[in-house]
């Protein structure tokens, strides 16, 4: 096998080794904002499955539960059945529109603050700082020989990585089963193999992506940066190095020696040192910039120290950049954010959300689907009547047992009975008991006099007998033999 070093030509290597990124600790408003988001998102992720929600004795008491085995999705008081999956589709559409909205307004804010890859990378980088120290200590340790100390630190660090990764993988499966039960099953070896497999896979991916791949995921693997780039325009906020103010760069000493010859950038490299993806923002917008704004915090801190105005690196639109470069003053943040494009996105987003909420409020939790048995279409009975068979699927989507009435309309002298009954005791309507939160299949026999049209539409209806009379009905066909047969 050829070593990667051999795969070079006179223009340099075809493959590049990863350059280590050792972001320096920084403090500032954006860093504190990132802390808050990290805390909230991780708390939601790790904690949600443990929230309890009482739904009575016939349904799970976990607030958020994706019950794949029984095809139910519980979210607080909302329960979604498979045929209502359009609510999930609606949520996905809202997520998409939301991404358009956020990206058109504030650029790659998803990448910079809320993306799991960013949040977990941030978490793992804090672990690095905790064990190895800040940037310089990390670089020293990485480049240094394998001493006992390095070995010990690496062991502890990777141990913590693995712990976080395992916890992350373990939290995921809690969304798919009762969390306390699954936890005890997991540790006693009684959980389903798929649970262990999922935890193993997610532990591995978290360990590798958060501990080692980090910015490589954003730069080489993730499609979002490419898609988001297409969604930004000249009015989207970008993390911008204001080169017209900063250039030419010069240290304070140089600036003091030649007043007026240098810009505000003192070339202290702090913006590069704090960058979690290891780029230099002063080279302009680039695919590696996840717009986490930590360079803004770093630069503002330096500018304050040297007594120059803040905002050398700042959120700025391309339009404002052109205006400011020409000496003008850019638009206010409020005006930048509230423009037709963002307002249209917001409008669509709210409209979809409102429509979903409205339909959630309107939906009945008793549903009927009737299937006419086609083989045979009709049965000749000995007394001259004709019987048709139907399969009823009655969905009781409430988490309580129910009693319902099934009745027919539009078929004179019809009698109905089920497998449990007999024709002798059949009547115009019948009552059945429905198990909670389940589909009851009923084989319905309907007999009607033999004299009548060959094909006749009639209605089968189901309605509640226990308080809530709302129900559902279905129009279906009754078949008789062709005349002369």
């Amino acid at each position, binding site marked *: 096998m050829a070593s*990667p070093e051999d795969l070079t030509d006179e*223009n340099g290597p*075809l493959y590049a*080794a990863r350059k280590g990124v050792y972001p320096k600790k920084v403090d500032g408003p954006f860093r504190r904002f990132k802390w808050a988001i990290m805390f909230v998102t991780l708390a939601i992720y790790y904690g949600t499955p443990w929230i309890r929600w009482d739904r009575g004795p016939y349904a799970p008491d976990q607030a958020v539960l994706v019950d794949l085995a029984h095809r139910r999705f519980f979210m607080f008081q909302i329960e979604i059945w498979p045929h209502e999956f359009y609510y999930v589709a609606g949520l996905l559409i809202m997520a998409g529109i939301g991404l358009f909205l956020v990206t058109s307004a504030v650029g790659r804010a998803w990448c910079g603050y809320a993306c799991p890859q960013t949040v977990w990378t941030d978490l793992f980088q804090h672990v690095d700082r905790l064990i190895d120290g800040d940037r310089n200590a990390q670089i020293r340790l990485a480049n240094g020989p394998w001493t006992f100390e390095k070995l010990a630190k690496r062991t502890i660090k990777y141990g913590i990585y693995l712990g976080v990764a395992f916890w992350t993988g373990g939290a995921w499966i809690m969304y798919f089963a009762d969390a306390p039960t699954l936890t005890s099953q997991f540790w006693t070896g009684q959980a389903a193999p798929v649970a262990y497999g999922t935890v193993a896979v997610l532990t591995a991916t978290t360990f590798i992506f958060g501990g080692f791949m980090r910015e490589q995921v954003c730069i*080489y693997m993730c499609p979002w940066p490419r898609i988001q780039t297409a969604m930004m325009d000249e009015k989207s906020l970008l993390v911008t190095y204001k080169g017209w103010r900063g250039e030419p760069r010069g240290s304070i000493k140089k600036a003091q020696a030649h007043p007026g010859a240098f810009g505000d950038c003192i070339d202290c490299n702090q913006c590069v040192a704090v960058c979690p993806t290891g780029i230099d923002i002063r080279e302009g917008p680039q695919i590696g910039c996840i717009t986490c704004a930590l360079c803004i915090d770093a630069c503002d801190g330096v500018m304050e120290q040297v007594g120059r105005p803040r905002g050398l690196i700042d959120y700025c639109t391309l339009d404002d950049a052109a205006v400011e470069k020409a000496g003008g003053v850019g638009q206010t943040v409020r005006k930048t954010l509230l423009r037709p494009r963002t307002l249209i996105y917001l409008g669509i987003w709210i409209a979809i959300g409102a429509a979903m909420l409205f339909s959630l409020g309107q939906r009945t939790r008793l549903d009927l689907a009737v299937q006419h048995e086609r083989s*045979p279409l009709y*049965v000749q*009975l000995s007394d001259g009547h004709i019987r048709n068979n139907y399969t009823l699927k009655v969905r009781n989507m409430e988490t309580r047992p129910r009693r319902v009435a099934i009745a027919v309309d539009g078929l004179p002298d019809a009698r109905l009975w089920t497998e449990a009954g007999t024709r002798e005791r059949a009547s115009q309507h019948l009552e059945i008991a429905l198990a909670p939160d389940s589909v009851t299949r009923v*084989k319905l026999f309907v007999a009607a006099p*033999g004299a009548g049209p060959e094909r006749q539409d009639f209605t089968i209806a189901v309605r509640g007998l226990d308080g809530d009379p709302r129900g559902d009905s279905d129009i279906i066909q009754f078949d008789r033999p062709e005349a002369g047969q």
Partner: protein
Amino acid sequence: MADPENLPASAGGRRVDEATGTSTVGHEWDGIEELNTPLPRWWLWTFYICIAWAFVYAALYPAWPMLHGATKGALGWSSRGQLAQEMRADAKRRAPVVNAIATTALTDFPAKPQLMQAAVQGGGAAFRVHCIQCHGAGGAGLKKLYPSLTDDDWLWGGDLASIQYTITHGIRNPDHEATRASQMPAFGRDGILDAPQIDDVVSYVRTISGQEKAGAASTRGAAIFEANCAVCHGPGGQGGRAVGAPKLTDAIWLYGGDRDSLSATINQPRNGVMPRWNSRLDPATIKMLSAYVYSLGGGEKAPPAAAKPEGQGVDGQP
């Protein structure tokens, strides 16, 4: 002379792009050039790992086509083997239900709804394999050939035990003693009745089934019926299940209820045959089939013991 490194691609050089400071790969397609941006090295390693994985996979699983078949692979896996394994696992899963069906008397099924449901499901599957050829996908039968199993009219009885007996022993199997057996004489062909007599009997049968009004012919036919037919079909044509003689007063006609069909039947009856299934199916499957047929809509309650149709002597048919 120009630096060969900076010749345009068309001249065989690898230009350094001014905007990015990156060299191009040296190809040009209609004026479009590609920058030589190195891939991350882990990408290359991932590629090598995939190749290694392919070798491992090819060694473990069937992979290389040979003259006869393919290499077997170290794990010995095959899709047939996997199917057999899955079938064994499923048989194991179904074992408790099949066991319960085998050990429970068929007549006790209706009292155990879950068992009944399982039996109906299993019976439906067996029905689709063994029975639909004659009785149709839904058990509706075929006009003038095979009886419908979905209606409320039964030749040999529609309670669970009767259905089970019929499936087990079949109808008119010459090689089987316990089979359901009876024979309607060929009244016309064998000259027992002459044509006008048959015509009168047809009139009578159509009268008792409500298809014609009573008249002189039907009155004559009544007497002939009492003398020749009532022994099996019962007085007034009420039918006789002990011998599989159909009820003649209802609306259901296996071989047709019009004059021509009735004449043809009396002239030369069909005496339909159904195979016995005890030689091909195990008792549990026959139980499930019985439950399925029972559930098609015409299932009857077991008749009270006293009213049971008389058995055919020693063979103990219900």
